């Protein structure tokens, strides 16, 4: 398990990628930490159950379980928020009107193809909006640990887990490093821990290039 400080490190690094005024859909887990680390940048959070302009968690007295996030947690509405139904919400998502989707992943292949909804042999019968977000968001950032709980690299040459769609992620931000995906494959662009490039090579199952690596520790 990742420590809370490592989770926060990932969230902070994702937050750096986001630009003032962007429309962002946050997946479950680490992405939900991001709003705390925006340092004044104003984002518009989209929630696939029908809201643009998700605000912070309400006080207990103000909870309305008919004003919830896609994770089914009580939320509030930001200034300028709007409400719509599920079909219109996915017009927004699938139609390319969400600037950035920040997703978790089970695996990511060397070109950025994502597996984030099912594990072979396990009965995970849920896909939710994951495939729509993968197909539709303008930019896709994966926020995830580099390795799964069993220690295996999530970055893989070829997906063993079922794909979430042909559309590839743009960035993978982990506790150790940031990778960029292009038509040539995986590129290491940043190191975020005291790990060495050699150690990274040992840890993950994908060949990666690097040019100018920023090292941030």
């Amino acid at each position, binding site marked *: 398990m990742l420590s809370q400080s490592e989770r926060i490190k990932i969230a902070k690094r994702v937050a750096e990628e986001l630009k003032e005024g962007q429309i962002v859909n946050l997946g479950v887990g680490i992405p939900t930490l991001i709003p705390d680390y925006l340092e004044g940048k104003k984002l518009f959070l989209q929630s696939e159950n029908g809201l643009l302009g998700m605000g912070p968690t309400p006080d207990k007295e103000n909870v309305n379980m*008919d004003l919830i996030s896609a994770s089914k947690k009580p939320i509030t509405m930001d200034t300028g928020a709007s409400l719509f139904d599920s079909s219109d919400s996915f017009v927004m998502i699938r139609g390319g009107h969400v600037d950035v989707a920040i997703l978790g992943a089970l695996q990511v292949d060397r070109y950025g193809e994502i597996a984030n909804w099912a594990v072979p042999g396990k009965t995970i019968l849920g896909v939710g909006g994951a495939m729509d977000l993968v197909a539709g968001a303008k930019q896709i950032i994966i926020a995830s640990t580099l390795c799964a709980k069993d220690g295996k690299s999530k970055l893989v040459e070829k997906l063993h887990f079922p794909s979430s769609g*042909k559309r590839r992620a743009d960035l993978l931000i982990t506790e150790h490093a940031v990778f960029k995906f292009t038509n040539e494959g995986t590129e290491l662009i940043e190191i975020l821990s005291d790990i060495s490039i050699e150690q990274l090579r040992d840890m993950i199952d994908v060949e990666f290039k690097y040019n100018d690596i920023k090292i941030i520790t």
Partner: protein
Amino acid sequence: MEKLINTSKALDLINNGDTLLVGGFGLSGTPLTMLDEIANSEKHDLTVVSNNLGETGKGLGKLLLSGNLKKAVGSYFTTNRDAVQAWSDGELQIELIPQGTLAEAVRCGGAGIGGFYTKTAVGTKLAEGKEEKVIDGKTYILEKAIKGDISLIKALKADTIGNLVYDHTARNFNAVMASAGKVVIAEVDEIVEAGELHPLEIVTPHAYVDYIVLNKYVKKGGAYVESV
């Protein structure tokens, strides 16, 4: 008011083997009273089209426990362990559809559209057996429209002619589910006079609503916790 009926009369509209389109996301915007009515009935072999199957023993989860269901079509069953278990045991058929595809397929069912080509799920297991088509250089898969015999939806208020408004994100799937059922039953907290809802405020026009029933649950601490 003609459209207002009691829940037992509403139950009579449902036949064994029917396909029910049920609104809601998690437990928000779920017609809890009508679901209780079904769970307490002998209705069987029902197919439910809904984003999820409620939670264990709540909402649609009750129908699973009381044996009313044959099949569930939705996008997310993971949060109800009973559903996953029933599927593993071969007691429940499950058809998994991406959330946006589900919403659009039901909208098409209510719109006189037979199917649509979506970019979602292209190249995935959920696209297996589905027709692929390249349109203007991009690959899409064909998804067929979904229709139902009965729509069970939940709104905040109806007016006396059947116009509906929803509570914040409880709108979710309710508006599309209202369009695609042969018979549409809206469960509401309150009925107001026609004219009290502003034309710009109405989300579901009365054209889509056949019957109205009153919600027997009361909201406490922001959630519908108990039936009165």
